[in-house]
């Protein structure tokens, strides 16, 4: 069975990826399963300068989910290239860099610089992180900004074979509108969804559990929201959609494919059961066969509505 999928010119060996921020830069899970079998690895966000991230606590447990307010902690562009990239390049899976910044110029600085190095497969533009003051979410809710940022990055890109994937936030009135803005700006694909804004209060201590107050909600709790978003976006744009949010098993992944996704990412569920990514991958081919399909992108056609 051929599991390859095409995302804006880039061919992934299979549609199963691991989500930005939940997989570090790849090494950490190496002892737990064969990372090379993944279709794609989306790195933790990379910003021009190193960032220590937010104050602690950065995590809270919620029903069927969790909050995080990591705050784009990352070693910065230089260190990413010298310290992280060499090991990432050894991976057989496609490495897609999650790009973040406080303003369009910072995003551009990251992409322009990464265009000069080998061994990367694409860019996922994080315009939807709820955990930083500047950039992040604010950027991702403004149609004009989304379109112009996408166009700016598109224009500075030298390697058209590296897709520009815009990552959408569910914290908006109409996610389809934002997806259309990204498409209009020249995005090769969109990924959805990023986390929902949430808060947990420690009743004993009478203050938010997270030092930053609010954080991003992820995990199975948000899966119905993610599936609805992918479904809605798939009716609004023609570019491929990478679906994520609460995927933990084959059935969850198939919900996203049926809703319109061409590929998926697994995030929070890795924390519970790291090998679930490969279990999903291993379940795909038999399922396609049993349903007389020859590729993953045909799954969406099965949906009866």
């Amino acid at each position: 069975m051929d599991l390859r999928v095409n995302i804006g010119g880039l061919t992934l060996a299979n549609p199963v990826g691991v989500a930005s921020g939940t997989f570090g830069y790849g090494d950490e899970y190496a002892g737990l399963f064969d990372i090379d079998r993944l279709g794609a690895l989306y790195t933790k966000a990379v910003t021009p300068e190193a960032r220590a991230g937010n104050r602690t606590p950065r995590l809270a447990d919620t029903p069927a989910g969790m909050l995080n307010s990591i705050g784009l902690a990352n070693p910065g562009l230089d260190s990413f290239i010298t310290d992280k990239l060499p090991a990432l390049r050894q991976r057989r899976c496609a490495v897609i860099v999650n790009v973040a910044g406080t303003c369009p110029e910072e995003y551009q600085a990251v992409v322009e610089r990464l265009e000069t190095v080998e061994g990367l497969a694409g860019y996922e533009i994080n315009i939807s992180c709820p955990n930083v003051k500047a950039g992040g979410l604010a950027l991702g809710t403004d149609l004009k900004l989304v379109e112009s940022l996408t166009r700016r990055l598109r224009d500075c890109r030298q390697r058209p074979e590296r897709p520009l994937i815009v990552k959408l936030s569910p914290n908006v009135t109409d996610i389809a509108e934002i997806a259309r803005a990204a498409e209009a700006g020249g995005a090769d694909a969109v990924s959805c969804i990023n986390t929902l804004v949430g808060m947990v209060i420690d009743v004993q201590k009478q203050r938010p559990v997270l030092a930053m107050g609010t954080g991003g909600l992820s995990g199975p709790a948000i899966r119905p929201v993610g599936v609805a978003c992918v479904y809605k976006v798939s009716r609004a744009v023609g570019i491929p959609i990478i679906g994520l949010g609460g995927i933990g098993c084959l059935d969850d992944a198939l919900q996203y494919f049926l809703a319109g996704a061409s590929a998926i990412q697994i995030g929070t569920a890795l924390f519970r059961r790291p090998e679930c990514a490969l279990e999903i991958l291993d379940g795909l081919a038999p399922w396609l066969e049993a349903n007389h399909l020859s590729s993953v992108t045909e799954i969406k056609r099965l949906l009866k509505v």
Partner: protein
Amino acid sequence: MKRFDSTVTELQPVASDYFRITFQWPVTLPLPQPGCFLTVSAGSGFDPALRRPFAFSDVDPARGTAAFIFQRRGRGTAWLAERRPGDSLDVLGPLGAGFRAPPSGARPVLVAGGIGLGPMLFLARQLHQTAAAGRNEVPILVLGYRSASQAPSVDLPPGSVICTDDGMRGFHGSAVAYLDQLADALPPYYYACGPVAMMAAIDRLAAARAGQADWQAATEQWMACGVGACQGCVIPFKDGGFKRCCADGPVFNGRMVDWVGLQE
């Protein structure tokens, strides 16, 4: 490290709301060291969603088992306390870097408060063994409790000291007060695991004693991945930086940790 389905062999109450759980530890896996931890998945669904971390208290290569001591606090530990022999237990471990050996000529002084009991017991037993082999001085284990009734019924190594705030058992006062008045021919070298307030007090004590530029603190922080990937579990350091409790620790030089920032 590995994620696997282990089997519970024993669940034993050791004090009010404290339990020791013993489970199969395959010989094919690395032997856990004192200070290392594991995470378990609690409940059958995703509520709670995150795995829960616990420090090893024991490992028995002959029987092929390992154990940890836990306090029943919330949903995850309530679920754990209901496990019975034969039940399966979803385990990921061993994780983290354990305690380092003490400097020669110093007295290993181990301090345990609350849920710090398990890893300190494990370390004390190991340091007694290595002391018998002449590799370090004989350790002292100091345990602090609010009242005598909280003290656990576990086999303590010889020379252990129990401190109670109410004075009903052992030393009358906190574990830190005990350390403060401890007179020993050898300089103390601290290892500790317990509430942040206790750790901060030990750090002040260590700072005050010229001889000790370093001590070993087993830290705790909310965790998500447990393997170093998510940056969720970071501990603040006095130099303004952060280190991951799960992958860079959980044992750190206690002098470097920003205990005030951690407490906040």
